[in-house]
């Protein structure tokens, strides 16, 4: 079954903006139920890769999702526009296919997903702008898994979540992956997470530098190539 029908396959994927190459010749595939970690230094094109996989950006090469793939997306951050007085509940309702009328089934699913990400229902009446980083992260995950997609794209925030909080976010993702058989693509900044949770890793610095099982693909040599000498020690420090 493995390798026969991957849920995502990309071949020779390239993206450029204004003649500047952002991604070059990226090839990898993801099997159903796997966790793929995408790592690389700042500006390596990780978020661009996600946005390309989601179909937001024109590209060269091939991106092929399996026909039954339904994608939930957790962006790095939500918005900077504090002018919008959205409550958490209203934010969820925006996902309704129903443009105007009440969506009773959606509301029931919201309760269910809140529980799944470990949030209390009382958060529903709070405004999004008043949430802590950790709470917002969970709300975004709940939003993404609402209506049960089978693939989750998780763009990890670079800052703002303390280590304890980060740890539980990964436990949470791991739990969701186990319970729902979710395929997870995660942009990560923490190599420990990659070794602990990922089935495959894709190292990215405009081009794909390595791809495979973390313990095999992610050698010290590759990490040095990816981040440079100083970053190597930094990443092993914790």
């Amino acid at each position: 079954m493995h390798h026969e029908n991957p849920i995502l396959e990309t071949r020779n994927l390239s993206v450029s903006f204004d003649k500047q190459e952002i991604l070059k010749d990226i090839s990898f595939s993801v099997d159903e139920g796997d966790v793929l970690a995408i790592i690389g230094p700042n500006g390596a094109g990780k978020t661009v890769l996600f946005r390309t996989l989601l179909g937001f950006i024109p590209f060269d090469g091939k991106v092929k999702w399996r026909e039954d793939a339904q994608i939930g997306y957790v962006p790095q951050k939500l918005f900077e526009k504090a002018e919008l007085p959205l409550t958490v509940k209203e934010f969820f309702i925006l996902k309704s296919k129903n443009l105007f009328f009440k969506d009773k089934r959606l509301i029931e699913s919201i309760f269910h997903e809140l529980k799944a990400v470990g949030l209390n229902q009382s958060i529903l009446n709070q405004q999004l702008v008043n949430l802590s980083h950790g709470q917002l992260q969970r709300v975004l995950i709940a939003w993404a898994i609402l209506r049960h997609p089978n693939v989750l794209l998780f763009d990890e925030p670079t800052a703002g979540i303390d280590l304890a909080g980060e740890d539980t976010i990964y436990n949470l993702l791991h739990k969701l992956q186990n319970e729902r058989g979710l395929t997870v693509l995660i942009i990560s900044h923490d190599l420990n997470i990659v070794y602990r949770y990922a089935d495959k890793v894709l190292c990215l610095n405009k081009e794909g530098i390595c791809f495979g099982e973390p313990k095999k693909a992610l050698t010290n040599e590759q990490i040095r190539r990816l981040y440079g000498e100083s970053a190597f020690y930094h990443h092993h420090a914790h």
Partner: protein
Amino acid sequence: MAKALFTIIMPIEFLQNQQLLLIFASGIFIALAASFLGAFIVVKRMALVGDVLSHVALPGIGLALLINIDPIYGAAAFLLIAAFSTWFIEKRTALPPDAIIGTFFTATLALGVLLVPNEELFESMFGNLFAIRFYDAIIIVITSIIIFVLTLILSRRLTLSIAAPDLAKSIGAKPDTSYLGFLLLFALSVALGIKLIGSILMGALTILPAVSARNLSWSLKSFLSFSVILGILMTGLGVIIANAFNFPSGPAVILSGIIFFIISLFFKKS
């Protein structure tokens, strides 16, 4: 007592005079559509665009007067073109919308002042209660209701597109299309208010209720509701004041809106 108070704010002549009643109703419905759309303009940080877009109406009014058709149609045509251009230029270039209007819309104001005959200029810019005839009132009320309903249908997608365009795309919505639809509805609602409020001040009617409402609101729903309620209140009050003191209606409405804004400041949650 209540009846006496009512007679002061709502003189009997007002209720007996059919034309005044029509004007009053037109004002209410103009405010209904404009302040609802204005709420989205404010949270999209386009207040300046919303404000100055109405200036584009002036050359449209001028041309309409020249070829002897109702100014509302000239205004609507110019506003719709301006709204579409804003969308198109913003999509094609990296220019922010306020740069587009700063250069382009202001020029149309200059052109408009030259095109509109002197005797019509003041009223075109600042509005006139009695420019509204029976036929206008019917068009204003019906079109406002249609705009309001369409905006209501668009509002979930539009809000998501404003809050998080990528999330909107990730569920298959088209932020670009909702934005264009929104701008066109907005332009149309501005056109409806041109006769009553005038091309200089109509933009302010869309913004003022929303900024006041933002101070009072705790959720999207309360924000949109307050915006519409305040829009209707300020326009209603403005029309009554304009009639009572024989003021041009645009300034009367906008100044009564400022009163509501100042009151809203005292409710602002930090």
